[in-house]
């Protein structure tokens, strides 16, 4: 699996992401600068990491979503290439029009930095094949704007087409407002695009991949992506 990690000014999780890709999927990621106009030849997976691109100016992800490299990402996605956006990466994908909806200020107005429990709604995607459907994983969140929202028609489609891939739940997998920490509609923590090749999620799986991190629940996402490409060979 050949991965490309996009780097925008103000992004700060790109090394964590590259490390997770190497540890869990054996993929040495190439860093791609925001002003580049092409992805490395043979790229299988594009990852937009977390951070604070452009200092969250205007809206989170708004400037990065219109960076030159995003035209190449749009073309890559249009051909079916896999794209993963985490945290600010999810916000950037929404702003770039690769995913529907928007991530608004957390309902409680506070920046939230703690572990979240998220339920994997389906395991039949390249991003979630390392898990089982219904499995609850513990993954850290660190965001001020993670409150997912879209118009009611879009939400109905996301739900109806099974494109809500991760939801915030209690540790036992039960939905409750108390565990939906940022107020996202339908407790949405991660969604897929219509074609199923672009995933955006607020929690950081790359930060739970080693024993010393206290939890390895994030490994399945990267390991699953590795298996996806190994199986395709």
């Amino acid at each position, binding site marked *: 699996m050949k991965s490309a990690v996009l780097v925008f000014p103000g992004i700060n999780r790109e090394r964590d992401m590259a490390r997770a890709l190497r540890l869990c999927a054996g993929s040495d990621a190439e860093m791609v600068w925001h002003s580049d106009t092409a992805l490395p030849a043979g790229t299988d997976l594009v990852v937009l990491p977390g951070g604070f691109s452009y200092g969250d100016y205007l809206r989170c992800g708004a400037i990065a979503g219109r960076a030159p490299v995003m035209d190449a990402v749009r073309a890559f996605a249009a051909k079916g290439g896999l794209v993963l956006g985490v945290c600010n990466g999810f916000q950037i994908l929404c702003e770039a029009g690769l995913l529907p*909806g928007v991530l*608004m*200020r*957390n309902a*409680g*107005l506070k920046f939230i930095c703690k572990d979240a429990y998220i339920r994997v709604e389906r395991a039949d995607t390249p991003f979630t094949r390392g898990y089982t459907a219904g499995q609850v994983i513990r993954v850290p969140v660190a965001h001020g704007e993670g409150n997912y929202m879209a118009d009611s028609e879009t939400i109905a489609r996301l739900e109806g087409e099974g494109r809500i891939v991760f939801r915030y739940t209690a540790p036992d997998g039960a939905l409750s407002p108390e565990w939906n920490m940022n107020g996202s509609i339908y407790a949405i923590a991660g969604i897929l695009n219509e074609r199923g090749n672009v995933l955006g999620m607020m929690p950081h799986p790359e930060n739970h991949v080693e024993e010393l991190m206290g939890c390895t629940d994030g490994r399945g996402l990267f390991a699953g992506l590795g298996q996806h490409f190994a199986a395709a060979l």
Partner: protein
Amino acid sequence: MKARVTVTLKSGVLDPQGKAIEGALKSLGVDGIASVRQGKVFDVELPGADRGRAEAALKEAAERLLANTVIEDFRVEIVS
């Protein structure tokens, strides 16, 4: 030419920041305020004097970048 683009949240979109400001005004004892919605203002300078062209450019700027039309509305006005 000077212009102003005002971006506001669509009605019905929850505005936690506006709510917090509303609460702060209440605790300051500022009376007579029913509700607050927070938005953004962009003051823009444009070359030339063609009003129609300026309005078209501002509309494009607002639609493509200044506003996220999923949750925001915008208004364009030529100031001088």
